[in-house]
């Protein structure tokens, strides 16, 4: 079957109708990635998303880092971290940081669950189009993996000043970042919309 897709890099029309399971298509003219076909993509997305939600809940519940010097100790939790910026008079920056590391990723995960369940079980859901559009708009604004690097850099910066201990939440967040990234990578834009169209036109 012939299915045309226009490359988002250079607008060339490419036929991606006969992709085998697990294979990917790139534009022959500019090399831009087009789509990847995976038969069980939706069950993978759902599995990664649920795992990521559990890990994020854990990451928000315990101590993330603790810092002690000369008998004084301070503990940082993930949810309270952006609040300190707020107290120093930078509410906009605090909101941005909280959104990039916790709230946008959490919202994305809920949207992924709300997309993958109807697509997996063939249920018509009125929010399907809206949720899928939101996922692709928001996905650039989750900075989970960047935050992990930020934590590692911070550790090295203050390791000389005092004793720093990584908490349970840090490890949960690191595992969460892996599941979160896998969930988003597995959701293919073109294939997902093809499935929505097939579901909605089916009798």
């Amino acid at each position, binding site marked *: 079957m012939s299915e045309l897709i226009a490359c988002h890099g250079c607008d060339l029309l490419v036929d991606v109708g006969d992709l085998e399971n697990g294979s990917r298509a790139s534009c022959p003219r500019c090399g831009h990635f087009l789509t990847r076909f995976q038969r069980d993509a939706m069950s993978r997305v759902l599995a990664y998303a649920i795992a990521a939600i559990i890990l994020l809940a854990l990451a928000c519940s315990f101590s993330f880092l603790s810092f002690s010097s000369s008998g004084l100790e301070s503990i940082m939790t993930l949810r309270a971290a952006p609040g300190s910026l707020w107290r120093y008079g930078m509410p906009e920056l605090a909101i941005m940081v909280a959104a990039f590391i916790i709230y946008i990723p959490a919202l994305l995960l809920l949207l992924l669950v709300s997309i993958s369940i109807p697509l997996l079980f063939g249920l018509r859901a009125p929010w399907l189009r809206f949720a899928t559009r939101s996922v692709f708009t928001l996905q650039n604004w989750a900075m989970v993996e960047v935050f992990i690097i930020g934590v590692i850099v911070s550790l090295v910066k*203050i390791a000389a000043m005092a004793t720093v201990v990584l908490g349970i939440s840090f490890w949960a967040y690191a595992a969460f970042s892996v599941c979160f990234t896998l969930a988003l990578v597995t959701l293919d834009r073109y294939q997902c919309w093809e499935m929505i169209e097939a579901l909605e036109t089916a009798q």
Partner: protein
Amino acid sequence: MNANASTAAAEGLASCHVCCKLAPTTEHNCPRCGAALHLRSSNSLQRTLALLITASILYIPANLYPIMITEALGVAEFSTILGGVVLLVKLGSIPVAAVIFIASVMVPLSKLVAMFYLVWSVDRRHLGGHRQRTKMYLAAEFIGKWSMVDVFVVAILVALVHLGGLLVISPGIAAYSFAGVVLVTMVAAECFDPRLMWDRLDNNNDSSEA
């Protein structure tokens, strides 16, 4: 997978930027997902250029003012982005200094230069390397958010280090400007439409054949 020799625009089709559906250019909204349908991103070059200039202006205070203030036993020490890199080198942690230098200095600078070059090159038909320039655009789009590392480091240190009068770290005003640089360049990359330079190539071929 077969390539047709034609582009969507030449066939009178617009590709939906949300769901990849091809629809006639006469449609205003995508028939599949309902998003507004544009043949190319509207005012792509003007918007990208305006945002790039904004980011370049923000980049100046981001580097001149302190991003972090360390107060040890009442003595305040102000550190700028570059100062932080120098300090890390002195502490002997070269790999982390390299991470911060790449993320906070090289990435924003090279992204700004690359995007300015791409905008400038769109109308220069004689420049070849369309494939390389598309790759350059994708790379600039991909690396953008990694510059947030420095802002996150400030957020973490400020939240973690407050030991009464002994040792306190507070954020500096450059954190604002720097976060601004990152956000504005990310939006600039989203505004730029790489298909514009391929359009010029297609037009060029048509006119040389005619």
